[in-house]
């Protein structure tokens, strides 16, 4: 925990430009899915924190560049992606899952059992 804090502090001190990653939030039957475009972010430089109802995602992207080569044209560079979300009570916080695939972070936020739709039996006499 403290180690992680230190890491976070380190990235902030580096003064990288900070970007808000493009995000999709989708609701499906099983819960909410958050997709975030974070190209160039590796698993070990991605931090996800859940504090009460606040979910914070941070990732550091380091651009690969060949040594001794001239930069002919640049449109992106090193940067830090950061974004936080407020999570509703509907979400089952214990079972939040995260997967990083090809530069896209997918957060799966399942709905809590009590929030799922259910059928109420009507008892007729």
């Amino acid at each position, binding site marked *: 925990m403290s180690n992680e804090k230190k890491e976070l502090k380190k990235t902030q001190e580096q003064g990288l430009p900070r970007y808000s990653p493009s995000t999709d939030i989708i609701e499906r039957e099983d819960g909410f899915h958050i997709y975030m475009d*974070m190209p*160039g972010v590796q698993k070990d430089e991605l931090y996800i924190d859940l504090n009460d109802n606040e979910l914070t995602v941070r990732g550091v992207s380091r651009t690969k560049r*060949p040594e001794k080569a001239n930069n002919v044209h640049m449109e992106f560079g090193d940067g830090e992606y950061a974004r936080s979300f407020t999570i509703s009570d509907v979400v089952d916080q214990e079972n939040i899952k995260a997967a990083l695939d090809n530069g896209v972070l997918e957060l799966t936020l399942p709905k809590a059992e009590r929030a799922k739709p259910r059928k109420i039996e009507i008892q007729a006499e």
Partner: protein
Amino acid sequence: MVIDFSTFYDFPRQLDRMLDEMWKPSMISQRRQSYPPVNIHEDETNIYVYSEIPGMNIDDIDLTLSDGSLQIKGKREVAKGNFYRQERPTGLFQRVINLNVPVDVDKVKARMKDGVLDVVLPKSEEAKPKKISIEAE
């Protein structure tokens, strides 16, 4: 009477914009203007092209080399479900990169890592700089 201040009127804003542009790091000034963003590097033997295309497999990206230009084409699919927020770009994209030197087509390498496309284009033999020794009599 109508006085057209338009050109003058805009002047302070233009000046502001110009100053803003100057403050930006010049290296990444064109960030996010066209999709996908590319970085191009060059050394004596290769041209390196990097592009941020998250969420795509290398097989789904169409790389074409023709007439001294590299084309990056593909399609980002839309996820299914009930959208609360949609910011990620979807749909077809295409980017053409002009290469001003001949490239050895058979040795071009491309790979995808963490959503960043990495293409290495080796320059063909005749484009590499050669030293010519001068014989003095």
